[in-house]
């Protein structure tokens, strides 16, 4: 065990890995700062480049973007009331009033300190919780895996329950898209419509890159999202004297980290909920709750602590069950499977070095992001002045050439363009695009486990209900569907009366 940890530390400190996580963090902060892009765009654009790296280096690069994005998102939220990533909207509640009072450095220090502690706490929870969950998951068979994947899918749908039918439609579309191509067990071509290229199925890279990369950039082309004139920052670096005062909110720091990790652990809940819950918890327990919303550093600290804990939290179900918690970790799952690594309870036993490298890399990413932002605060903040249309064209060109380079197939680039148009339509309609991606990524797992389970039960679905763990997960799934719907109905009735 200790030997694996040491090997993991050694591997993560290799120059290649360090360079990858530093570059990933840099890109993550940059795309996090630019409103309208976010870590997903950064991840999918760099995805094709990861195929030349070892799995641990590739994952360090992408995790750097994943975590760095949340660090960067707070800066425009505090300085311009424009969140770089959606979850940073909560940071702007107190960050922007601080800026208006000429105390932007206090807000930025609190946000950065919150991000750092949230990130570090969540990595420690990940290290302790992942083996426990993996131990439970070791007794899983196909019915339990199917039930767990179904639970994840249902959580995602219920997270967007105000758009329930649309969410289900997109989930179904994602699940169906995952069936296109040759069916593995029977070698039967499915829905290829006479196209030889479709027989290979749809690759995760063009689908994700199209939906998020090209779709989002088409929106950027259309709308001037950035507000560049409002940006003001007098110091080049962070005011380090302001960092120390945040330690008096140490309870808020720990609470935000814990809340964020557990929210990230649940599929579909996302970082916005983590920010809100941490913020509300800090407000409720504060000696001066009225200061929240008026410009208190504690608000920035709580919100950022919550959302920065999400990436490590999302890694727990991903590594132990192979079930991604959100679209970003779904892309990471794609990277794992492309490299022939299948996350699940045995991953921690089979690939201890990779797992320990990931843990240490996530720890290092938080340190690197903290140092980068503390030292280059103003240069990073000025990124927001880059013209969005120019940026969009650059991202599109890189994306298309990148997708082609993965398999040197123009067909993949064409798929990305089609997905880009679909992504653009869904973004304009404000439909929950994450359901489509989750459906596409989880589709294969669901189908495989469903067919294996039915084979075990000789065609009878009763097998899902006679195994205690599977039955428990199914009952939990029913509860998470029924309870929110009943509560919503009661709330609507109360509002109407």
């Amino acid at each position: 065990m200790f030997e694996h940890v040491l090997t993991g530390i050694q591997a993560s400190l290799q120059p290649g890995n360090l360079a990858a996580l530093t570059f990933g963090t840099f890109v993550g902060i940059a795309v996090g700062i630019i409103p309208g892009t976010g870590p997903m765009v950064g991840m999918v654009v760099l995805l094709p480049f990861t195929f030349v790296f070892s799995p641990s280096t590739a994952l360090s690069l992408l995790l750097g973007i994943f975590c760095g994005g949340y660090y960067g998102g707070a800066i425009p939220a505090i300085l311009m009331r424009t969140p770089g990533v959606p979850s940073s909207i909560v940071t702007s509640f107190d960050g922007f009033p601080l800026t208006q009072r000429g105390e932007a450095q206090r807000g930025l220090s609190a946000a950065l300190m919150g991000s750092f502690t949230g990130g570090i706490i969540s990595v420690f929870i990940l290290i302790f919780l992942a083996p426990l969950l993996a131990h439970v998951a070791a007794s899983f068979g196909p019915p339990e895996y199917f039930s767990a994947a179904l639970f994840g899918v249902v959580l995602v749908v219920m997270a967007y329950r105000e758009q329930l039918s649309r969410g289900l439609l997109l989930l179904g579309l994602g699940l169906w898209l995952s069936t296109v191509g040759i069916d593995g067990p029977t070698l039967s071509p499915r829905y290829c419509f006479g196209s030889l290229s479709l027989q290979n199925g749809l690759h995760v890279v063009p689908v994700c890159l199209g939906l998020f990369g090209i779709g989002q950039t088409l929106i950027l082309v259309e709308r001037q999202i950035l507000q560049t004139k409002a940006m003001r920052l007098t110091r080049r670096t962070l005011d380090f004297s302001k960092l120390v005062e945040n330690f008096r909110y140490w309870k808020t720091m720990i609470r935000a980290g814990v809340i964020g990790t557990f929210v990230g652990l649940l599929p579909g809940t996302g970082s916005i909920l983590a920010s809100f819950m941490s913020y509300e918890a800090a407000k409720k327990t504060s000696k001066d709750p009225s200061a929240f919303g008026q410009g208190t550093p504690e608000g920035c600290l709580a919100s950022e602590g919550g959302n920065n804990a999400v990436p490590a939290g999302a890694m727990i179900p991903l590594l132990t069950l192979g079930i991604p918690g959100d679209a970003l970790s779904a892309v990471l799952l794609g990277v794992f499977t492309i490299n022939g690594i299948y996350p699940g309870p045995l991953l921690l036993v089979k690939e201890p070095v990779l797992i320990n490298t990931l843990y240490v890399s996530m720890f290092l990413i938080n340190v690197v992001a903290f140092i980068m932002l503390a030292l280059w605060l103003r240069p990073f903040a000025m990124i927001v002045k880059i013209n969005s249309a120019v940026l969009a064209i650059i991202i599109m060109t890189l994306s298309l050439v990148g997708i082609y380079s993965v398999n040197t197939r123009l067909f993949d680039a064409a798929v990305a363009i089609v997905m880009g148009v679909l992504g653009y339509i869904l973004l304009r309609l404000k439909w929950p695009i994450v359901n489509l991606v989750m459906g596409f990524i989880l589709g294969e797992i669901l189908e495989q486990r469903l067919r294996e389970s039915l084979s075990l039960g000789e065609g009878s679905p009763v097998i899902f209900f006679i195994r205690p763990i599977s039955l428990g997960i199914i009952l939990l799934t029913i509860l998470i569907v029924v309870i929110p719907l009943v509560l919503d109905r009661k709330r609507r009735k109360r509002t109407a009366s």
Partner: protein
Amino acid sequence: MPQPDETPSRVHDLFGTFLGAAATGILFSSPWQVDTSGPDPFYKGPLIYPLTVLGLIILASLPSAWRLVKAHEKATWKLDGGGFPSKPLVIFLFLIAFLCGLVLIGLRVSCLLFIGGSLYYLEHRRPGVLILVPVIMTGLIYVLFKFFLDIWFPTPLVLDWFGG
């Protein structure tokens, strides 16, 4: 199913119905689109899962179809006030042209033309932007993909035609 928008737009329902109709078409054509000649029983076969999923899509599209037929009196075709997406449409056409250009005129020329053309269309016509951005990006892409990643790109067809 609840509608999240204060003023419901019929565009949502049209799109939902379109997806449902497409799924219905695919569902009925499934026996011809999926080879089921293997010896496996239905529950092990290649059709059970896609049929379930298509059924889910159709069910989920029913509320949209219902709303499309029985439109709310306040419902309009207005979506978000963003207007017709002319810019994304033109850039989409440029993207297709870029892809065809990779085969016809090669990576470097198509990159230059795509980036330059798009910036010109989006009214970034200052020489600094219009010339420097395409040249720098094309150079960067060429170095990155050709030399660093050693990716094979198709020989431009134009060269084949003129080179005999």
